[in-house]
């Protein structure tokens, strides 16, 4: 009989390999228009609440505080202000690829001109001594755009 008293039995651990499941995500009309704006016009579109007047980026159907439907579109950016930032130095697994992310890179929260919320994106500077809250930045668009957040390559300090 396996595992009699006194023995130190082997404990088994199983590595899954990658758990892979493909997904399709629907963007719906709001995100679709936002992505079309990036791809086709190199412009950043936001929605404006008819009730409180806040301008939301990324654009969306409903203003949470007002529970009001938004139908008005406005252009924001492409410049804005760093509201906060972090330089990421910890490598972790990119869940979209299963591969480690290469570090360092900088995540930045940009309050685009004309917007009341901030857009998360990358900044092309990873020395924290050269970055400060309040600095102005500008979106750099890629030449080849496919209708995703990465149609903006990153933001740069100006």
């Amino acid at each position, binding site marked *: 009989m396996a595992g009699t008293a006194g023995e130190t039995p082997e404990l088994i651990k199983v590595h899954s390999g990658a758990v892979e499941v493909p*997904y*399709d*995500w629907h*963007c719906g*009309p709001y995100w679709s228009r936002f992505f079309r704006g990036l791809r086709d016009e190199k412009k950043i579109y936001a929605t404006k609440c008819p009730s409180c007047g806040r301008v939301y980026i990324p654009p969306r*159907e409903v203003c*949470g505080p007002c529970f009001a439907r938004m139908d008005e579109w406005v252009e924001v950016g492409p410049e804005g202000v760093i509201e906060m930032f972090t330089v990421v130095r910890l490598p972790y697994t990119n869940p979209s690829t299963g591969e480690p992310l290469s570090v360092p890179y900088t995540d930045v929260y940009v309050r685009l001109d004309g917007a009341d919320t901030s857009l998360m994106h990358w900044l092309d500077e990873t020395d924290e001594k050269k970055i400060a809250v309040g600095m102005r930045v500008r979106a750099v668009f890629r030449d080849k755009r496919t209708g995703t957040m990465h149609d903006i390559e990153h933001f740069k300090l100006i």
Partner: protein
Amino acid sequence: MARRTAIVGIGQTYHCARRDDVNGQELINEAVTRALEDAGLTMKDIDAIVIGNMDHFEAINYVDGWSVDGSGAFMRPIMKLTTGGTSGMTVATAGYYHVASGFFDVVLAIGWEMNSSSDTTAAITTCCQPLIERDFFAGAIGPLAAEYTAYIKRFGATEEDAALVSVRDHNNALNNPHAHLRTRITVEDVMKSPVLCYPIKLLDMCPRSDGACALIYACEGKAEKLAPRPAWVHTIAGSRDFVYMGEPFQHEELITLERASARAYKRAGITDPLKEIDVMELYLPASTTGVKWMESLWVCGRGEAPRLIREGVFNMDGQLPVNPSGGPLATNPIGATAMIRVGEAALQIMGKAGDRQVPNVRTALATAFGSCSWSDVTILRDTKP
């Protein structure tokens, strides 16, 4: 001890195989907006929210978080619940608890799913231990198919008995404007449809749908003002069983449904469910379960279900209509499916079921099924408990 609580509003989205026209949050908002309209309320009237789905079907976790604007949860208490196929009723139950406890007066419960985001059967297999049973599981279909082979062997039931259930539910759905599948079918159509997992064929099995449902629960004192005929919650009972699929109790009867429904009947003072219940909305994921599980609802003895089904007892014009809405065989946005059962039962009580209305409904029962073999039961009435 619990505060009396009723359902006063129901909202269902347009359900279909692919809702490409909305993202998840917008789908949720569609159900919420319709439920609020149905109850004549605005979001300001909602004290708390409960929501649920199967996160990994969409690979976007924490719907309670990312849907806040669309669900109306901004600065409100919200909880997410997920219990597999039973999720929709778990969420409904939690909505009921929120009000019955005395903490909140008016509570919104939301179930939803964007099934078209992934391979549903693959996603369902992840409920099975990967090291032990996952490779032998085949999602929801495999075990349901297997258990019917045992039932056939024991009681002489046939594949045609299951087909009769499929025909009933599919054809009932013709009366339901919210149903996903609305095509008239025959027993021959079912028998000729492709085998998915023997003995379950394509038309024996529920589809995958995109959709959402929202219910509004209100306390005594408010419910009567919000609805001319609220659907009062009389009892909710749930039962869960073993960890592994190959357990001793689950193959020839659905022990969890037997125990949950017996408990619910006792609490509601029901001794003869076939006579005393006016309509049932059952979570039947496969037509085979519409045969085998009727016995677990105590409407007949062991092995007697095939005869009752052949006699049409559960048809719209029978003694106890089952699934006037068409049930999950017609519409199956998984995280919403069990909530739709409760919502459809409530519509029957409230007299708002339109072309699928059963006359004079005073007592309605809804069930949910999920996970290994879990069951929930809700009993609603037009009178206060």
